[in-house]
């Protein structure tokens, strides 16, 4: 049991790695048993959990977080190579990267940044409505199949495309200050497109704009930086 779990101290608290290929339920049980054995050591601690390539659904992660919090341990971060697990962690409001040392997946993206074209090829597809309080952050492009509601935010190193209503905050071509791993100055050529472009606030690279008051029926629009300002233009089939 103890050889499947490694624990080391990091700047943000404790990093617990459960990266072997065994069943998640057993790994979770082993982790809790380990914590129960030395409650005093763990109590009040912040935990970053590296689960390797395991796909873990949000409900399972939520359950573990609750079980940990009953033991006075707060789960702050979940590191994983599995997109399912990463999305689940984000949905629960957990961090998916360490600030001090980026996990391998993120590190790979930073390396790819040396070839900007290659990095921009990379896109994530979010196939659901992004609701208030959720944040989708990605160094490549972000495509949302659904709405982006007020109170939600999308931050992308590349373009943002919303097949739905964009009413939250969107930041395309975000610079590294807003999105670690992105290009240092961001990307002025990035665009934001939506079937209904009515964001609370729109940012491209270092430019910021708000939406003008809505008039008429919504039409697909694309926003880009022109002469140092963000402008939105209607998309029309002829052109």
């Amino acid at each position, binding site marked *: 049991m103890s050889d499947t779990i490694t624990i080391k101290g990091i700047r943000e608290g404790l990093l617990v790695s459960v990266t072997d290929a065994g069943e998640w339920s057993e790994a979770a049980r082993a982790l809790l048993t380990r914590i129960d054995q030395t409650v005093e050591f763990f109590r009040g601690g912040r935990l970053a959990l590296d689960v390797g390539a395991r796909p873990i659904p*949000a*409900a399972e992660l939520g359950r573990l977080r*609750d079980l940990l919090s009953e033991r006075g341990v707060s789960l702050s971060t979940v590191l994983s190579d599995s997109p399912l697990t990463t999305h689940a962690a984000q*949905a629960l409001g957990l961090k998916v990267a360490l600030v001090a040392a980026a996990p391998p997946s993120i590190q790979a993206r930073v390396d790819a940044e040396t070839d900007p074209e290659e990095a921009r090829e990379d896109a994530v597809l979010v*196939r*659901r*409505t992004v*609701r*208030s309080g959720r944040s989708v952050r990605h160094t490549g492009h972000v495509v949302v*199949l659904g709405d982006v509601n007020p109170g939600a935010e999308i931050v992308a190193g590349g373009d943002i495309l919303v097949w739905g209503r964009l009413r939250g905050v969107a930041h395309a071509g975000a610079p590294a200050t807003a999105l670690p791993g992105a290009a240092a100055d961001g990307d002025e050529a990035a665009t934001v497109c939506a079937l209904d472009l009515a964001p609370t606030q729109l940012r491209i690279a270092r430019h910021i704009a708000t939406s003008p008051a809505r008039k008429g029926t919504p039409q697909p629009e694309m926003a880009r930086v022109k002469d140092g300002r963000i402008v939105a233009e209607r998309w029309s089939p002829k052109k």
Partner: protein
Amino acid sequence: MIQSSNGRVTTSANGASQPAAHQPERERTMAGKVITVTSGKGGVGKTTTTANLAVALAAGGHKVVCLDADIGLRNLDVVMGLENRIVYDLVDVVEGRARLRQAMIKDKRLPELYLIPAAQTRDKSAVSPSDMIKLCNDLRGEVDYILVDSPAGIERGFRNAVAPADQVLIVTNPEVSAVRDADRIVGLLEAEEKGPGHLIINRLKPEMVKRGDMLSTDDVLDILAIPLIGVVPEDEGILVSTNRGAPAAMDEKSRAGQAFRDIARRLRGEDVPFMPLDDNKGFWQKLAARFTRSG
């Protein structure tokens, strides 16, 4: 899943609705159903809704227990008029000082209505999500419906209240901040695989909607895109009944009480048409006129 007959109710527009919550590992001796009432924002009417739905379900012949999960800020006992009969509370049961039956306060007005009050002198950390799941599983064998009144917020208290839920009702008011918080709750419920939940729009004022000064039912559904299970009109009588400890659903003449009774019937699986409050103004005016006459 409850759907209205007028077709206005849809699951989320992009098809991202989730299957209803199911907990395979639970033992079920009786089909006791756990329904959690939550909102994110405070003061939108969670406790009033819980009390009224409990009364309406109990009046319909079901055995109902209300559980106040707002530990440290209990209110449900006051709204139900049972404050002076509390001996044991939820925390006493969880910590083993009282048996479940001892903490169930029987409402004398309705034969099958019970309340398990929250502890007032403790806080949310006194109870864990697994305590709530265990408590509700014990209650499932005893009653038909377990209504859990959630505290405001998205922290431990919320997670406690939602953990045992088979169905979640999200209460909101037709105002931007309440809808924003409800949207956050829906996102959290989806992440916890507790379904998108069902929406109750509380304190709607049809006249204000008509003037364009208040969000309409459609405006709210436009953002939240989850199934609607009820719209409760603003009713001054609610304040009176809340202070008296006699939920409005007990009053045959109350407009809000009628809306809560309709929601209770929909919870039982009946297909009850929605009163078209703000969509069909002509109808509403007729209805208003009727109320004025009868009142």
